[in-house]
């Protein structure tokens, strides 16, 4: 298109679509860019290509039926979404899950954070042409998948938690398996850091690319690793501790400039911190009940169902009708791999959710992407886009 620049020059701008089907748009995103040479003058971003009606679908079923849908929000770390949703509903009931359940959930949360960061970093590096790291990181991810399979049978979409506890207690060798995987995570991170951290090409393509200052990141509503990469030391695990995160010693990882390099490195080091939290939580894991004893949420045991009329009725009602949170509106959030994952639940006291609004963490990051890319080179789009980790499932819902 022909356009007059602010300085009054006549410039022939080239418009180009990055996406909706582009190797760097993991999922389906679209950035419509106007280029002067290779420099991006303006970028208009678009989303919704994976809008599959999450918020409409979950109004059709019961609260338990929401869980499989939450798996498919951020499908790189499905368990985090399960736990976040269950935590929000449990808050409405005023139920605290037993200590064993809390410890197991912390281990699952941190392992999920690790595998989410693995995918984010390795995909970002593939976009930059560093394919080897993909093999290194995906091998570790496959090892974590093996634990998931032993836990519930599924690799990716687990649906492993239930409102008021877990689908079932973890298998006996769970702790050993996790402890065996954590060194693999650490060595893979060390290997990949060795490959890229001081690599000239990597530094040239990521340093000072896609810079977001702390004030900009706050104004855009960023949370999570991207906010921390901009130098803002905010983490819900520290600021509003839940699930006993204040008992664990770990550092929040913060960056300096908020460029692509920092965002990648923050994720790398967060994996090591998460591994440390996993070890601490496993050390505190004691035998005990995994599900709450609250009859509004938990199914009675089979022997009770067979011998006790009340238990039979309760089991029947929980399965055929579902749980009934008290009427009202509740927002609850936790620190997911990408930032603050929140659920605003509107309950009318019935068995189906009246309205659930998801607060997806990467929505804010994608909204800021257009302004972030103005003045950058076209090739920087791939580098910066991977580093803000847009997951279309939770972005578009």
């Amino acid at each position, binding site marked *: 298109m022909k356009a007059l620049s602010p300085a009054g020059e006549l410039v022939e701008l080239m418009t180009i679509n990055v996406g*909706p*089907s*582009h*190797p760097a748009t*993991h*999922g*389906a995103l679209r950035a419509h860019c106007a280029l002067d040479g290779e420099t991006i003058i303006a970028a208009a971003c678009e989303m*919704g*290509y*994976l*809008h*599959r*009606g999450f918020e*409409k*679908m979950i109004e059709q079923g019961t609260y338990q039926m929401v869980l*499989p*849908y939450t*798996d*498919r929000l951020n*499908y*790189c770390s499905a368990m985090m979404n399960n736990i976040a949703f269950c935590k929000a509903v449990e808050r409405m009931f005023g139920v605290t899950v037993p200590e064993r359940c809390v410890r197991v959930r912390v281990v699952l949360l941190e392992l999920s954070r690790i595998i989410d960061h693995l*995918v984010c970093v390795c*995909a970002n590096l593939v976009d930059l042409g560093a394919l080897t790291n*993909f*093999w290194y990181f*995906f*091998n570790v*991810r*496959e090892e974590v*998948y093996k634990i998931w399979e032993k836990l519930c049978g599924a*690799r*990716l*979409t687990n649906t492993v938690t239930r409102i008021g506890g877990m689908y079932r207690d973890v298998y006996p060798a769970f702790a050993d398996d996790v402890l065996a995987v954590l060194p693999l995570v650490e060595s893979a991170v060390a290997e990949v850091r060795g490959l890229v951290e001081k690599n000239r090409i990597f530094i040239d393509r990521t340093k000072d690319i896609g810079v977001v200052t702390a004030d900009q990141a706050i104004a855009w509503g960023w949370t999570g690793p991207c906010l921390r990469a901009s130098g803002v030391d905010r983490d819900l695990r520290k600021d509003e501790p839940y699930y006993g995160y204040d008992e664990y010693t770990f550092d929040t990882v913060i960056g300096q400039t908020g460029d692509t390099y920092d965002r990648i490195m923050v994720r790398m080091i967060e994996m090591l911190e998460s591994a440390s939290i996993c070890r601490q939580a496993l050390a505190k894991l004691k035998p005990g009940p995994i599900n709450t004893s609250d009859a509004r949420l938990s199914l009675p045991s089979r022997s009770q169902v067979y011998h006790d009329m009340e238990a039979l009725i309760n089991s029947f009602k929980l399965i055929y009708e579902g749980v009934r949170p008290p009427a009202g509106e509740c927002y609850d959030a936790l620190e997911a791999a990408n930032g603050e994952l929140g659920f605003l639940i509107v309950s009318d006291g019935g068995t189906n959710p009246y309205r659930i609004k998801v607060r997806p963490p990467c929505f804010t990051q994608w909204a800021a992407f257009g302004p972030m890319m103005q003045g950058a080179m076209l090739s920087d789009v791939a580098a910066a886009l991977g580093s803000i980790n847009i997951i*279309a*499932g939770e972005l578009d819902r």
Partner: protein
Amino acid sequence: MTYKPVPLPPGPAPGPAKPDQRGSENLLGDTVVTSTAEALINWGRRNSLWPFPFGTACCAIEFMGTVSSMHDLSRFGAELVRFSPRQADVIIIAGTITYKQAPILRQIYDQMCEPKWVISAGACATSGGFYDCYCTVPGIDEIIPVDIYIAGCPPRPEAFLEAIVQLQKKVDRETLRVSQALGTEPRRDRIAVGA
């Protein structure tokens, strides 16, 4: 009772070919393998399928798992992932297709050169999955013809590998006449794999 070995039939007599045995095989000996053009071309196509991963959702993460070293799609000659439809032989639809996405999918399919094949990976691409609502296409075969359907939500990497193997068998059965039917879409026999 003692065992008596069965005598082998006498082999071909050594020496030069008899003058009445003509044909290229006899003239050239073992130095050249002959075949039909169809078998030769299918052999090449079957063993170097270049996939275009049209990954939109969760299934794309499992496709990444399929390509990664544990499952290693390159054992079947299909590891060279191409993101340009003009360079790809097989498009793998991995993920939900919404109505907003549908025209894009059709356009990309049209940009692929014949012969081309389509793998519909997972419940969403195949039937819409459990997203039965206002914005999801209930199965991509409303938009493009499909060769292989994979079950699962998402399918396991083994199912992706099975789909590639089934597609290779299908490629072997094709005749040049069908795959050269440019301008019209060839009739497809549909195969389902997975759980």
